[in-house]
């Protein structure tokens, strides 16, 4: 390429100011290779330069937190000598152009983030967001993404136990594919991505390096889609990475064995920005220098140049720091697992700068004794990207949106409305192995997934862990702050349904273009909302990921903060009640019945209103103290059952998308037993969505009411279970079969639409 040299930095995505800052760091002009390294490491995706200032407002500490944000995964102490690692990440842009491989490599990447901590990955979850299925391209994306997750996750041997599935026009040009992974390790095996010990070796494990996703992070993750159809310009189209779950499986086993044997001092996965990221981050964390021999890196294709080798995003690779004495033993373990192991780096003494400070240099060399091709402070790549406090502005158009409250929307046919809200994601999760490792007590399809906390190599325990991923872009579009807070509360409620107490939060913040002041405002508000809710509940945020530039044709997606909650159950020997009530049970609504403020039963942002094309309105606050009491009460009830205690409670489900009506219908569909429910207070109560309410079925209403009263938790009787219809006062009257069949077939019907 013939470009005037002064504009190379721009082609690499660096601004003129950033270029000047690089010159200041180096005290000289960078050469092309050095510039390329800064280009990828200072990209939005790698450096979080637009979001980092705001992320600092999140609470990140707590008594169980072993590792907070900043490492590859957050880690909490789950008790019994077991630590649990968790991380969530986005793979939005790769999935938009090659849905199968984009989603598959997303799974591969998140697994590496977890086993790099020394944890065996135990489960994956996949929050997914697409445009409406009436569009053929969306159906192609859904098919591709789901088979990619299925193809990779099942083969690598980690169960996928839940996720989210949202269809909304705002994602048609820019789908979202987030993946969460949770793993567990004996607490003492915890390792970090740190290089230490001058003379030690950096060993590259796994696949050979090809020209995969060169510049991918900076070009792809940090640039929106220009085309109407969500297609990238050909010029910008990077080579797509292909996942190899078989390589990853062997890599997991090899790495865990190396860690078990104590051969590894530090380890780091190669994700976005590949080798330059792994070497500079490990060196920066350890305050040491590192010499990297580019020629030592095993290459898949001939003729690769140093820049390509250093920034390639070839999948299924890890970088381990070991002592030279252990090299032979490491090679032996890797050979047995048929995993390539090559020394590509040496840990070296940091330099002392003019002020007497130690500066670890990353040196890229042509052979360990050969020419130095690049030499830059490791920390400047990894930690010292410029941080931006970009302009934030609440869009003035929002007021009109808030004023367009759907409470004046005509009622219409409630039966049809209810049926149209029911979607069983079973078509998705049946394609995922959700049972591997014999831990899955509650798999996908209920409020939260519940696993036994067990796995090869873990201390014996009867504890359980619960997981839920949640998001509500409809709420967040109206009020990103309150919407995000409510999302956290709803997630905590989901965990309560399986008896688990929330312990930690991870988040994936999917937003539009941060150069749009309205998007920066949304991001900042969402972070504050998350901080509010987490502080109110005493929950630490132990990790996350920010995905910006989710836009297409200049239009940003609705703000989509996705949260993943990890809960713990002290004693898990029996399954939680689930949704299966019995004929004759009494039905109650537990929790605060009304939201705070003008609208007791807000419809703004509800699925009901959105389906009718009404996207405006206001959210209502909720009473957090009562919500906490309610959740503690439900946790106690369900945890008792999981611990093997007898109980009159037969079913528990929280009220979320679609409101009380949808919650009841979902339980009807699963149980195949109907219910007679008294008239609700207000039509809006049927479909109003706000967290903190639970539908509970009990065989002994008096006993249950006594316990709720003792706990100071509000509760009202709704009706009784039984019969072959769901009847809600004068508003809903549907047969059990209709409800079950509609819900079961909704997704498949939409996907098989021919056009």
């Amino acid at each position, binding site marked *: 390429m013939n470009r005037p040299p002064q504009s190379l930095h721009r082609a690499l995505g660096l601004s003129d100011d950033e270029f000047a800052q690089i010159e200041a760091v180096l005290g000289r002009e960078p050469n092309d290779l050095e510039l390329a390294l800064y280009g990828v490491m200072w990209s939005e995706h790698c450096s979080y330069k637009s979001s980092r200032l705001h992320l600092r407002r999140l609470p990140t500490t707590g008594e169980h937190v072993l590792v907070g944000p900043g490492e590859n995964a957050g880690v909490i102490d789950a008790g019994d000598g077991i630590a649990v690692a968790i991380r969530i990440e986005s793979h939005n842009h790769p999935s938009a152009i090659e849905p199968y491989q984009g989603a598959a490599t997303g799974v591969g990447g998140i697994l590496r983030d977890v086993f790099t901590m020394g944890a065996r990955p135990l489960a994956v979850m996949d929050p997914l967001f697409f445009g409406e299925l009436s569009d053929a391209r969306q159906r192609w994306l859904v098919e591709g993404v789901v088979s990619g997750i299925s193809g990779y996750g099942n083969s690598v041997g980690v169960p996928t136990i839940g996720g989210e599935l949202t269809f909304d026009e705002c994602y048609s040009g820019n789908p979202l594919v987030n993946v969460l992974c949770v793993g567990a390790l004996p607490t003492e095996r915890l390792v970090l991505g740190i290089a230490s010990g001058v003379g030690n070796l950096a060993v590259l494990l796994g696949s050979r390096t090809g020209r995969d996703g060169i510049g991918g992070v900076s070009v792809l993750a940090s640039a929106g889609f220009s085309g109407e159809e969500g297609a990238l310009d050909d010029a910008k189209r990077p080579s797509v990475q292909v996942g190899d779950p078989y390589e990853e*499986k062997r890599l997991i086993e090899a790495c865990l064995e190396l860690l078990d044997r104590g051969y590894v001092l530090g380890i780091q996965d190669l994700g976005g920005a590949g080798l330059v990221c792994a070497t500079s981050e490990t060196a920066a964390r350890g305050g040491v220098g590192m010499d990297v021999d580019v020629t030592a890196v095993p290459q898949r294709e001939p003729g690769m140049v140093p820049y390509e080798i250093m920034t390639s995003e070839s999948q299924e690779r890890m970088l381990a720091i070991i002592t030279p004495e252990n090299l032979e033993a490491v090679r032996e373990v890797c050979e047995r697992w048929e995993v390539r192991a090559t020394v590509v780096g040496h840990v070296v003494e940091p330099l002392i700068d003019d002020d007497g400070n130690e500066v670890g240099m990353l040196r890229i060399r042509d052979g360990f004794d050969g020419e130095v091709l690049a030499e830059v402070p490791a920390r400047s790549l990894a930690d010292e990207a410029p941080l931006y406090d970009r302009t934030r502005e609440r869009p003035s158009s929002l007021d009109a949106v808030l004023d367009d409250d759907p409470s004046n929307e005509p009622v219409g046919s409630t039966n049809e409305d209810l049926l149209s809200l029911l979607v069983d994601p079973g078509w998705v999760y049946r394609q*995922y192995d959700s049972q591997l490792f014999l831990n899955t007590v509650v798999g996908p399809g209920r409020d939260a997934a519940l696993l036994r906390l067990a796995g090869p190599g873990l201390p014996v325990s009867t504890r359980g862990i619960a997981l839920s991923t949640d998001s509500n872009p409809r709420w967040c579009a109206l009020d990103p702050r309150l919407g995000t807070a409510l999302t956290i509360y709803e997630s905590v409620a989901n965990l309560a349904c399986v008896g688990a107490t929330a312990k930690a939060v991870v988040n994936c913040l999917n937003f539009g273009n941060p150069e749009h002041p309205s998007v920066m405002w949304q991001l900042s508000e969402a972070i504050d909302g998350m901080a509010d809710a987490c502080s109110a509940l005493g929950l630490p945020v132990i990790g996350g990921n920010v995905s910006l530039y989710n836009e297409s044709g200049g239009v940003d997606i609705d703000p989509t903060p996705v949260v993943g909650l990890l809960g713990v159950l002290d004693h898990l020997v029996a399954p939680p009640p689930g949704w299966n009530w019995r004929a004759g049970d009494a039905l109650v609504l537990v929790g605060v019945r009304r939201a705070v403020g003008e609208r007791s039963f807000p419809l703004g942002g509800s699925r009901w209103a959105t389906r009718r094309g009404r996207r405006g309105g206001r959210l209502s606050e909720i009473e957090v103290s009562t919500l906490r009491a309610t959740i503690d009460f439900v946790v106690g009830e369900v945890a008792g059952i999981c611990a093997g205690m007898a109980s009159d409670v037969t079913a528990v489900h929280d009220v979320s998308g679609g409101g009380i009506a949808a919650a009841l219908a979902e339980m009807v569909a699963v149980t195949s037993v109907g219910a007679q429910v008294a008239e609700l207070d207000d039509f809006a109560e049927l479909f109003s969505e706000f967290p903190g309410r639970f539908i509970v079925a009990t065989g002994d209403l008096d006993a249950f009411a006594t316990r709720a009263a003792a706990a100071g938790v509000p509760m009202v009787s709704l009706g009784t279970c039984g019969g072959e219809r769901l009847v809600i006062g004068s508003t809903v009257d549907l047969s059990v079969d209709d409800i079950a069949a509609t819900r079961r077939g909704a997704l498949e019907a939409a996907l098989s639409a021919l056009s």
Partner: protein
Amino acid sequence: MTRIAVVVFPGSNCEYDALTGVESLGADAELVWHSTKDLSGFDGVILPGGFAHGDYLRPGALARFSPVMDAVARFAEDGGAVLGICNGFQVLTEAGLLPGALQKNAGLKFLCQPTTLTVTSTDSILTANATLGQELVIPINHFSGAYVCDDETLARLEGSGQIILRYVENPNGSRGNIAGLANERGNVVGLMPHPERAMSTLLGSADGRVLLESFVAPRVRA
């Protein structure tokens, strides 16, 4: 105590589950690497589920050339009990130790769901303790589980009681609703459902126990 070898191919992923399953029944089980050439000293061999060699090419296509497979063939020849679960079943058909083949599911999707099976023969090391006609709820987890064979083979299997388990509702297009089958002697069996995942009501079903109990029961070689 019955000694069981659970073979680990690179890419296997149900080996611990199989190990746990038979250990919970009192068997003495051990993981053995696919390069093993000797299986003497074991009373039974399990080829577990997973994706041996990534299932690249075809499920089982590369695994059947693993060094251990000669030993498995000899072990079977000597009347030893061999059980292939899911991927293990695919390996056994590829290796010719069981007839037929397993194709992609008719719906072209991976399926993870509970299935109800009927025990249609008790003449095998896996179904000996079960009763004819017994219904068992056991999950399936596979992409390529549609059993295929030619008419002649099917007639032979039907006639000789080698079809040991059938789906009550066919989930994958399997010929004859076949979920599991045995060789003529009944000492080599393969099935697509995972009995090791149905060992406790905490995880949804305990109906797999009767099958694995048959498998680990002390027996005189056929």
